[in-house]
């Protein structure tokens, strides 16, 4: 344990913990809306699409974060828009965008040849490798996401609960849906650094579903989900340092343990 505490003296561990906690809080808050609106797989689909954007950035030699944020945000709007233009439901749109992202990613990876190792770190996450600039950008964006959620809280809650009645209150559900989609895209891109593309949706889903088992009110679910997400990241990083396991996978398994415990508490 002393060794683990000694790790805290290292700047890279401090950065990982700080940016991880902030990103987790954003994911925890957003996840509640996504799960209750039955858009849980939106995070998964966007993460798969990010495979293409990261591939493009690596191929061109650009910073993946700057390329991924606008492109994944556009993909999130496309997922919302497709079911209104074509005869399909939202889950099919997620599946299609996700598949196209992976296909382009694989194509770019084969074209680039040399960056497969870098791509691998994005697939499985590497929070302990977060740089200073990246951490600052992540913190700024997460603060923006949290402020947006707080400002739009009542509208998001109303639309999530019943969008027809929300409309009769003068609320435009389309605006709330677009806001949620873009914020989700931001958190997915940032979350990729923490747990990787393959597991980022777990940061959106697990804390929210666990909080749903424990709380009665909407506000309590939001706060609990954010706290559980942050706690899972801190616990996961410490366990990973202690047992020398991959941080991303450990964080996901900690989340699974929290969820199992919440089920035991219910029964």
């Amino acid at each position, binding site marked *: 344990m002393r060794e683990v505490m000694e790790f805290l003296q290292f700047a890279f561990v401090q950065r990982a913990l700080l940016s991880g906690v902030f990103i987790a809080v954003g994911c925890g808050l957003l996840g509640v809306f996504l799960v209750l609106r039955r858009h849980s797989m939106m995070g998964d689909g966007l993460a798969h699409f990010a495979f293409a954007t990261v591939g493009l950035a690596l191929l061109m030699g650009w910073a993946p974060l700057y390329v991924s944020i606008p492109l994944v945000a556009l993909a999130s709007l496309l997922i919302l828009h497709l079911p209104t233009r074509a005869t399909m439901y939202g889950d099919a749109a997620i599946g299609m965008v996700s598949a196209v992202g992976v296909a382009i990613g694989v194509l770019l990876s084969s074209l680039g040849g040399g960056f497969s190792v870098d791509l691998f770190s994005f697939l499985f996450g590497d929070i302990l490798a977060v740089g200073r600039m990246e951490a600052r950008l992540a913190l700024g964006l997460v603060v923006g996401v949290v402020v947006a959620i707080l400002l*739009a809280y*009542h509208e998001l809650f109303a639309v999530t609960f019943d969008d027809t009645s929300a*409309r009769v209150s003068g609320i435009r559900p389309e605006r709330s849906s677009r806001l949620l989609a873009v914020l989700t895209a931001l958190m997915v891109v940032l979350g990729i650094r923490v747990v990787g593309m393959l597991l980022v949706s777990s940061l959106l889903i697990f804390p929210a579903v666990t909080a749903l088992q424990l709380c*009665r009110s909407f506000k309590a679910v939001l706060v609990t989900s954010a706290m559980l997400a942050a706690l899972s990241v801190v616990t996961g990083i410490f366990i990973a340092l202690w047992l020398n396991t991959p941080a991303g996978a450990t964080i996901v398994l900690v989340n699974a343990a929290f969820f199992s415990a919440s089920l035991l508490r219910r029964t």
Partner: protein
Amino acid sequence: MNVIETTDLSVAYGMGMALDRVSWRAGPGEFWAIVGPNGSGKTTLVKTAMGLLQPRSGFVTLFGVEPRRFGAWQRVGYLPQFASPAFPKFPATVREVVALGRLAGKRFPRWLGAADDEAVKSALERLGVAGLTDRRIGELSGGQRQRVLLARALVNRPDLLILDEPTLALDPDSRESFYALLAEMHRQGGSTIVLITHDSATAGKHASHLLYLDRSVLFSGTFQDFCHSPEMNRQFGSVAQHTICHQHDGGGGSCAK
């Protein structure tokens, strides 16, 4: 000024007409029952009046304003036909659900204050569900849930209350107590009520006006006019007319037979 007014209103879903040149006026303080068979356009009519659907042709106004330009949503209370599909598992307390009604008419970010808390408390007391304030909405019985949703619709003391088959999932006792509550509130508050129902007997007992729809208007007017109309007698048959009018007259039976 009429509360809702439609003129030659037609609404279509794809190629099929849901409403065909419907002209109807609901005035202040009137209690309208909208009845008609399945697919007759009852829900379509009120949804178009609230701007949830767009007309193919004709006009509709809400308090004299086109629905898409209407902004005073605090004047409208709405209880939709189907509760949110997420209901049973949705993490919201009764207090939170009723407070949603207070968002109407507020500007972004629609923050709620002490006056809103007071209005929520008052609506819950009025509907006799103050004891359920901190219960999760999904834990309530059907009757309790409808009362809570009615509290949400009434929390702004609206000038217009629209109820779309509010007693569909209720047992007969809960249904009767729900309608008694509604009638009592109408007597006290004087707001316009538009009630969509299949239960024409109950409609006849509580409402003052009847709109009989079957994509177009078959009858629009007071129950008295409906009950004394030989034409309606021919159209619906004496048994159907008697069922509605018997309840409206409180069993007195001044119907045209």
